[in-house]
């Protein structure tokens, strides 16, 4: 299933890498529920969030600068950062 990483830029502790924001990928697998690091980092009671592995092509992330367009990056993204693409 295709998903897009939200193009948000909040300050503070975020585990969604900058280079992936706004990019579209495919869900590779669901990982399960984990504590939201954005709350955990400040020692607030964390809510559990769905964690998803998403696969992105290098072409999608780097465009013409991609070393090999069909190579991929796989990263774990928290579901609240994803929207349907």
């Amino acid at each position: 299933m295709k998903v897009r990483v939200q193009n948000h830029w909040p300050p503070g502790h975020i585990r969604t890498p900058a280079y992936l924001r706004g990019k579209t990928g495919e869900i590779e697998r669901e990982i399960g529920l984990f504590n939201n690091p954005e709350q955990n980092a400040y020692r607030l009671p964390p809510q559990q969030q769905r964690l998803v592995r998403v696969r992105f092509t290098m072409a999608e992330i780097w465009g013409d600068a991609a070393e090999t367009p069909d190579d991929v990056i796989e990263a774990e993204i928290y579901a609240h950062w994803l929207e349907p693409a």
Partner: protein
Amino acid sequence: MGGDPAGGINHDQHDFALWEKRVDALMVLASSAGLMNTDSLRRVLEDMGEEAYETMSYYERWIASVSQNMVESGAFSTAELADKMAQIKARGTTYGDAT
């Protein structure tokens, strides 16, 4: 960070010093004791900024982060830390003397 320009990768490695292993152990144990967690360790590291990354070693940054985390969670106060550090300094000039 990912994708930022960078130069060659230095392949030198080092054995960890005892004080560095202790820092690592303190992080793990303080987390198990509920006084901090991996995310709060990282958040403090990130908030220390670029200069810390340039001027401090990996475990120097970690002990700075663990220490701040301990103050935030109330394990000890900055005043207690200052007093203790003064005591340590008075013990001697080398790590071996002061431990």
